[in-house]
């Protein structure tokens, strides 16, 4: 079982140009990161590209990890997610129709996933529940599907500015709750 400390150690060694550590880090984390790419891109070929790009970035930027106090999986997932979202935005036409996407609000965690960082998990759930109707879904849609303000506004059938005002207010509440 790979622990957080193991992954942290691998990233540190990758930052020194250690290829063996890079290989070990890939083996330990690529399945999770590939899952993230697949979730956002919803297309295998693009997800494979995104995963490769993410690991190239990880190789290049590992020496700067640690400066901002991120936990290792947060750093890896955030970096991967951002690259996958850049790819989604680069598509000329999105392949997935928003209406056809499963209702993300309903997809609960698998038992295995729920066991991971259970206390953190509860905190984000509790905080999202404190938001007004629908706002939690918008936050989740933006994070897990890479929705833009325009896509969120279309989904909730409100003007873009209204969506932005809603979400900005929700984000302030969420931050309060997360660090309470």
């Amino acid at each position, binding site marked *: 079982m790979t622990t957080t400390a193991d992954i942290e150690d691998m990233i540190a060694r990758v930052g020194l140009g250690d290829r063996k550590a890079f290989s070990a880090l890939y083996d330990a984390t690529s399945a999770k990161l*590939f899952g993230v790419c697949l979730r956002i891109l919803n297309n295998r070929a693009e997800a494979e590209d995104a995963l*490769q790009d993410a690991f190239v970035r990880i190789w290049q930027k590992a020496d700067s990890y640690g400066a901002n106090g991120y936990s290792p999986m947060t750093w890896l997932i*955030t970096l991967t997610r951002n690259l996958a979202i850049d790819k989604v935005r*680069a598509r000329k036409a999105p392949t997935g129709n928003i209406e056809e996407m499963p209702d993300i609000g309903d997809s609960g965690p698998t038992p295995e*996933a729920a066991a991971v960082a259970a206390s*953190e998990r509860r905190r984000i759930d509790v905080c999202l529940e404190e938001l007004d109707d629908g706002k939690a879904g918008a936050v*989740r849609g933006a994070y897990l599907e890479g929705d*833009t303000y325009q896509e969120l506004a279309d989904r909730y059938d409100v003007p873009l500015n209204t969506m932005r005002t809603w979400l*900005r207010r929700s984000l302030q509440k969420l931050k309060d709750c997360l660090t309470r």
Partner: protein
Amino acid sequence: MTTAEETNGDDIALAGEYALHLLAPAERLAFERRLSRETGLRDVLRDFEEGFVTLADEIAPERPPRRLKRQLEARLFADPEKTGGLWLWSALAFVSGAVAALILAAILFVAVPVTNLTPPGASYQAELVAEDRSLVVRARYEPQDGRLSITRLAGTAAPGRVFELWLIAEGADAPVSLGVLPQNPIAAIDVSAEIVAALEAGTLAISDEPPGGSPTGAPTGTVLAVGAVITL
């Protein structure tokens, strides 16, 4: 952490929008520039990212195909056993500069085909995309041609305005102009060795400028599209 408490509500919302990747390219860049200076803002962002990342708990891991790791390592480390050209370069690295140049010159005359010699240096690519996809530009650098090839896939400059291309090197505060994009959707831009060195992990951006480009040396118009530079 005390600085985080001083962060005002607008900035907190902004950090959340940044974490969700909801900001327009120009706002995103402006926020990143502030991040490099403001510890309080970095703390707020980290709190958001650490909170949001737990949403990814519900994403089931999926093992990528085996070939992907081989491709990745070939891309990053260019396996010397497999390519004669690269083997040659690493062998040359052991020989001092002048001798190496002589040997290289000899090889260039003798070895056939010469195309087997892969020049050292990485290839880079970036896709610069506007939030609403109204502007999509692909930039690609290949060491053998030493120029940045630009392919504009979508978007044209406003009447009487031009697109100017910028490079923001990793950790750099100010963008450096790479020049005005010509009207032709396919173009090549000459880049110096310093620029090439700064491409790695950098960001390319396109701004809207008056004819001839920014008069100040910094973007004066809206930043329309940005894209991270990827090493190929």
